[in-house]
């Protein structure tokens, strides 16, 4: 029960902190001081106190999308393995629902962008959709691989890496890499997307929410941060020891998440954004990682089950 309460609590704080950490790291790398760590949180609060400017072209789709995106993302996060791999809600196949809720969020994010009738937002939606096309199968391939070895279908069991030989190590390595890349992609970070660019033509996620304002924008930004946090959670579930104590877990989990953010910030400081046409190649790497994990699973499975 405590773990679940902590899960919910972390949901409300860590996503903002992660965003803050990335910004701070980038600022430091650029020789600036940077905003306070909780600046994203303050931004959100401020947006919630604003009214909204809405395009005349838009319909109810545009109006409901932000709430729906946030609700779906938040619900998905409730299913994810949190403190000590304890999920707030767990059942067989919860991983499927989790990923499909994110899909639902994506659906509405995309059609809400198209609802504005703007070429820029359409372009962003198109790119976002393309990247998901490559990302999604790798996620399911990896999840299936974990299921193949663990014999369970729920997040908690799947991410408890047990087994013979080098399997846990291989799974942890490939998984961490995979989820980190996905975190950068889904979190709209460099090298896939540049949230700070000044040119709409090169944006992906940011351009999709160009027309959102006020509480809507706050919801969407929070949802985006939550998504990053989700991948951090998955990484944490993979790398933390199987038998970690609940108390330790509660401490280590935020650290892992912030470490992920730190790494993302460093990547962002060192690497330039890819040309859009090169992004798919980068993303195919995630599929390759999932396939490596699958091959390893089949190889090592003999003693595991």
């Amino acid at each position: 029960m405590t773990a679940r309460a902590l899960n919910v609590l972390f949901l409300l704080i860590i996503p903002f902190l992660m965003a803050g950490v990335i910004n701070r790291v980038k600022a430091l790398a650029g020789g600036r001081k940077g905003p306070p760590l909780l600046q994203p949180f303050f931004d959100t609060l401020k947006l919630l106190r604003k009214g909204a400017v809405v395009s005349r072209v838009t319909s109810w789709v545009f109006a409901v999308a932000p709430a729906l995106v946030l609700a779906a993302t938040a619900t998905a996060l409730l299913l994810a393995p949190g403190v000590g791999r304890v999920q707030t809600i767990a059942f067989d196949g919860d991983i499927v629902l989790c990923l499909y809720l994110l899909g639902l969020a994506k659906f509405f994010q995309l059609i809400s962008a198209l609802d504005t009738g703007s070429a820029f937002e359409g372009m962003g939606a198109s790119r976002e959709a393309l990247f998901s096309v490559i990302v999604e199968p790798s996620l399911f391939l990896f999840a299936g691989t974990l299921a193949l070895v663990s014999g369970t279908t729920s997040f908690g069991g799947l991410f408890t890496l047990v087994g013979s030989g080098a399997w846990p190590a291989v799974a942890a390595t490939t998984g961490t890499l995979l989820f980190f890349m996905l975190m950068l992609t889904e979190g709209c970070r460099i090298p896939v997307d540049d949230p700070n660019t000044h040119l709409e033509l090169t944006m992906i996620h940011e351009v999709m929410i160009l027309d959102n304002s006020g509480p809507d924008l706050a919801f969407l930004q929070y949802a985006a941060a939550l998504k990053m946090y989700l991948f951090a959670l998955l990484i944490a579930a993979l790398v933390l020891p199987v038998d970690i104590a609940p108390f330790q877990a509660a401490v280590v989990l935020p650290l892992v998440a912030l470490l992920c953010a730190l790494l993302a910030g460093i990547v962002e400081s060192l690497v330039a954004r890819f040309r859009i046409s090169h992004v798919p190649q980068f993303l195919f790497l995630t599929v390759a990682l999932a396939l490596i994990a699958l091959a390893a699973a089949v190889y090592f499975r003999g003693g595991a089950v």
Partner: protein
Amino acid sequence: MTLFLAGIATILTAAVAQALFPRRTRVAFFAFVTVAGLLLAGGGALMTLLNGTESVLFAFPFPFERVTLELDALSAFFALVIAFGGLAGTIYGAGYLGGYPDRPLRGHLFAFALFLISMLLVVTSREVLPFLFAWELMSLFSLVLVFFDRGNDEVRDATVNYFVAMHVAFALILTGFLLFMARSGSGEFSSFAAAMSDPAFAEAALLILFAGFAIKAGFIPFHSWLPKAHPAAPSHVSGLMSGVMIKTGIYGILRFTLIVGVPTTRLALIVLAVAVLSAVVGVLYALAQHDLKRLLAYHSVENIGIIGIGIGLAMLGLRIGNGPLILLGMAGALLHVLNHALFKGLLFYGAGAVYRAAHTRDIEKLGGLIAKMPATAALFILGSVAISGLPPLNGFISEFVLYLAMLAGAPLAAGAFGAVVVLTAGALALTGILALYCFTKACGIVFLGTPRSDAADKAHDPGGAMIAGMTLLALAIVAVGIVPAPFFAAAAKVAATYPFPGDPAAQAAPVIGTLGTVSRVLVLFLSLFALLYYVRSRLIVRNGGTASDATWGCGYRHATARMQYTASSYVSPLMALAGRLLGLRTHLERPEGLFPARTEFRSHPHDLVDAYLIAPGAKLIRYLFSLFRWVQSGDMAQYILYGVLFLAAALIWIMGGTR
């Protein structure tokens, strides 16, 4: 069973009696009676599903002699799907036919009713000849329905294509049946199990049957007719064909897998491979389409592929004795049969409403319809979410069950089979996300943004019957999505009739529990959404309300409808990756000079199966035919020569034989 037969009789009555009514009330009468008949038939099927198998034997004159109609769990399930799909289709159709005030419609209504009846008979027949009879009637009447609209060349070509495809399917199914009959010595399906004593033989016969049924179902590479026939048909028919009729192909595959029992590994893997190919390639082709109904037709190929994945997994499960794969694979497939009937019907009907309102199926000429036809738009978006397999709607439920089958079944599958199952999961995920891509395009370009043509600007919602038909489907979609447990239980009951290791009920129970949890989470999600939306609306009102303005054009203030993102540009990044695979042909006139006068870009999707299988096949046949062009030369002496040569050859043959 009595109820079911009474239903069929009622529909038959509607078919005949409508001709006697004046044109003014004909359609209404027909719809009313047909709906009653479908309710009866569906009710009968439902009772059987709950109570157990029932059958009735009719004595017929030669050539049938005995005709058994039987409703077992599998038949009842499909009969339910047909009845419900037909119900919505009839109601919608009654509205849609309002657009043809100058047509007498007698023949059309007759064919429509007979089409429904023949589908119901297909799933209940238990002997070869009656089955084939009903099967061909179904093809025949659907063909009649396809060319309802004033035919242009496209309709004609689609009709011919459909006709030939159906005949090839028939020939294959016939061959498969005959092979079984030759072994079992009887035309009763139940006797076919005897042919299993020779697995190689059974495999060959089943493969031939599979190919035949796959044509009807629309699996790639047997799908060529489908994206041509469905757009050509009027929308109330395309919805039924796509949602219901092609499922009879699935029924056939399931029925004969059930009868024959354990399939061979090779057969299971072939089915799985064909299914995965259909799912992935089907949705890719759909993405490339700009014709709304063709797009939907290709999605039928995709969804048939998803159903096929379930069947393939179940067959693999049967082969290796894997409980979850059989139960959940089969149940997932069956649920998807139901779900696809619901959302594909809804989407085709929506497309029909759009076509009726805007007189075009070209996505690029639509846009902004959500303002003009809000009900249709809302229903279409609902259907789109469902077909993309997203929660909280029904598409998610069947895909969830399929994933569960794979996640739970993989660890129990030895060696490489486990990997096959995992890879299938990856393929299903790819299919799902591509469907999402495709339907954001369909919704976004057709209904959202601003109108791209005058016709789209003047569109309006259709009348009550059409909306009612669609709403009926939408309600069912939500019902299955939010309360999936009973539907799964029904599907599991059907799945349990397959040879199963262990107690199927015991294995189904936890899944029913899981689905209960799923529906609770979904309710949580919906409440959260409602709460957030309420909060957001309150906040905006409190903070000073909504200001209206033009869409942010990055500083440009005079954006026009033509500057919107188009459907082809929306999918162009993917087409750049997969275009070659899809046979996408592009045509580009690059802008030249400082002030280019006119530039042009066009892209045409080409079905690779058409381009590399059908077209060369047709070319080969034409070539072979041309080898005989000398035969009817018009020269009489030559004609006589044939006879003389035949005689000479015959005499030489006889001489050889008697020497």
